[in-house]
């Protein structure tokens, strides 16, 4: 089950999706048991920005029949706060640390890359480009040119692996991935959440979410993630971290078979903090995909 990813030796292919597992808070809730049976083979932090952020006003959540919409708004302590308070605690985790970062200009991203690239507690960096470039106004991650320019600006600042996290709210994630590869990315990850909106249950003329719109995740996006992963895998030879609606082993298996090297579990961790470990176990060679296939596909046809 062990796997190599950008020079990291990982015990199994299942990591967490950024922003869906807070190892520090989880340790407050579960204690050192978290370190003893850490559910993921690497830990991906929630997005860190240069300046601290409060995040969006509540309500921040809306539940779907098979998923959710969130408008969390990337709350975080900012670079300084993260280095001072979070990094030391995350360094205590039994797995490699991948820090997810976002900047609103390429200079901001360069600052973050520089700062985290210099810390040996950090194994790799994931660039969350699902935000507008405040200078060009373009949604960075949706535009191959923006991503190319961003990588040209930040690549020189570190030798650590750079993972570009692709947005599905985009005409061609494959082209964006190709631009990332051409300009020095070490890997890509996808999918981030899809833009979604929810009317207020009492007053449909108002938005329910404090952030106006939000991001859709969970089983409802699974088939979309698989299609986009296929598109991206056809365009690049970089290692890929696949994610989107994974809650069982076969969902991860499908992403791996479509070209992913690692699979991230996100929303499912909200339903079970050990979801990552469960998905990894269901990937074990012993378990046949057929056990999950519809019965009618397992029974041999009649005479």
């Amino acid at each position, binding site marked *: 089950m062990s796997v190599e990813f950008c020079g990291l030796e990982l015990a199994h292919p299942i990591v967490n999706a950024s*922003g*869906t*597992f*807070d190892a*520090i*808070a*989880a*340790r*407050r*809730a*579960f*204690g050192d*048991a*978290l370190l003893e*049976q850490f559910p993921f083979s690497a830990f991906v932090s*929630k997005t860190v920005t240069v300046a601290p952020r*409060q*995040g969006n*006003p*509540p*309500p*921040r*959540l809306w*539940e*779907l*029949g*098979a*998923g*959710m919409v*969130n408008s*969390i708004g990337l*709350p975080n302590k900012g670079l300084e706060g993260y280095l001072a308070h979070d990094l030391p605690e995350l360094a205590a985790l039994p797995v490699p640390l991948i820090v997810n970062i976002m900047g609103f200009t390429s200079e901001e991203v360069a600052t973050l890359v520089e700062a985290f690239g210099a810390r040996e507690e950090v194994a790799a960096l994931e660039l969350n480009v699902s935000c507008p470039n405040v200078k060009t106004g373009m949604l960075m991650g949706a535009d191959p040119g923006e991503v190319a320019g961003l990588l040209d600006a930040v690549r020189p600042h570190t030798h650590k692996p750079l993972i570009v996290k692709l947005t599905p709210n985009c005409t061609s994630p494959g082209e964006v991935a190709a631009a990332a590869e051409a300009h020095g990315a070490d890997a890509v990850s996808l999918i981030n959440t899809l833009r979604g909106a929810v009317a207020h249950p009492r007053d449909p003329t108002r938005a*329910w979410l404090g952030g106006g719109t939000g991001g859709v995740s*969970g089983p409802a996006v699974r088939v979309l993630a698989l299609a986009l992963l296929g598109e991206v895998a056809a365009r690049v030879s970089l290692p890929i971290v696949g994610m989107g609606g994974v809650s069982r082993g076969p969902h991860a298996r499908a992403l791996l078979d479509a070209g992913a090297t690692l699979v991230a579990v996100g929303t499912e*961790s*909200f*339903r*079970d*903090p*050990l979801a990552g*470990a469960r998905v990894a176990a269901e990937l074990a060679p012993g378990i046949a995909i057929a056990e999950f296939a519809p019965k009618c596909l397992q029974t041999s046809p009649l005479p």
Partner: protein
Amino acid sequence: MIADRTLAPLGRRRADVVAAERFGAYVVVSAADPDRPAPDPGQFYMLAAVERWGGGDDERPFLPRAFSVMRRHADGRLDFMLEAVGPGTERLAELGPGDGLWLLGPLGRGFAPPRDGRRPLLVGGGVGTAPLAIWSDALEDQLVLLGFRDAEHAAGAALIDGARVATDDGSVGHQGLVTDLLSAELGRDAHAEVYACGPPPMLEAVRALCAEAGVPAQLALESGMACGYGACFGCVVPTRTGYVRLCVDGPVLDAAELDEVTHP
């Protein structure tokens, strides 16, 4: 690190429902959770039915739901008090002995003991009765004041011995708001610490009353939760120091931390 709370076993666990009893508008669901840590009063659990969690054809629930623990018995049995207000609570209210229940908990931070010899005043509304029940069991000389909509809901008062009751329609106890009873009590003797749980408008009224009377209060709040253990940042409430995640920094907050108790 020394924990400021009773820790939860890592991972959701499957428990058997051993009883489900009606109290008017409420159901008390009991689950067997032997050999697990006893929760602190005010802590909560994330619950989901093992079978039929979600009605298909795009119906919720999908995520687990948060419930204050109402009591824990010596054999590890946990009681939860719930009112069916939507798909999740409706499904949980259907459960009977032998049905499976996913449990995660105990979670969050519970109530702190009264400061400098103040007498505990417990003030609840509706399902807010639940955390006050387990807290009341742990206290002495406490006074419990409960507010309900009507007689059907007031049946929930039976869950705490000696509770005094107010109802909107006067069908049981004092006609009016539970905060009427509270202000009378504070008028009589303000050397008290107030513990309150209930709907936001009630909690806001309690907060304002106590602030005015200079009485310390601990409020058990609610907010929509996806995970219950700090993973999603979805359950924040605004405090004087900014947004805090109710599931890890609460659900019990000191009233002094709040400008106001809000709701969507």
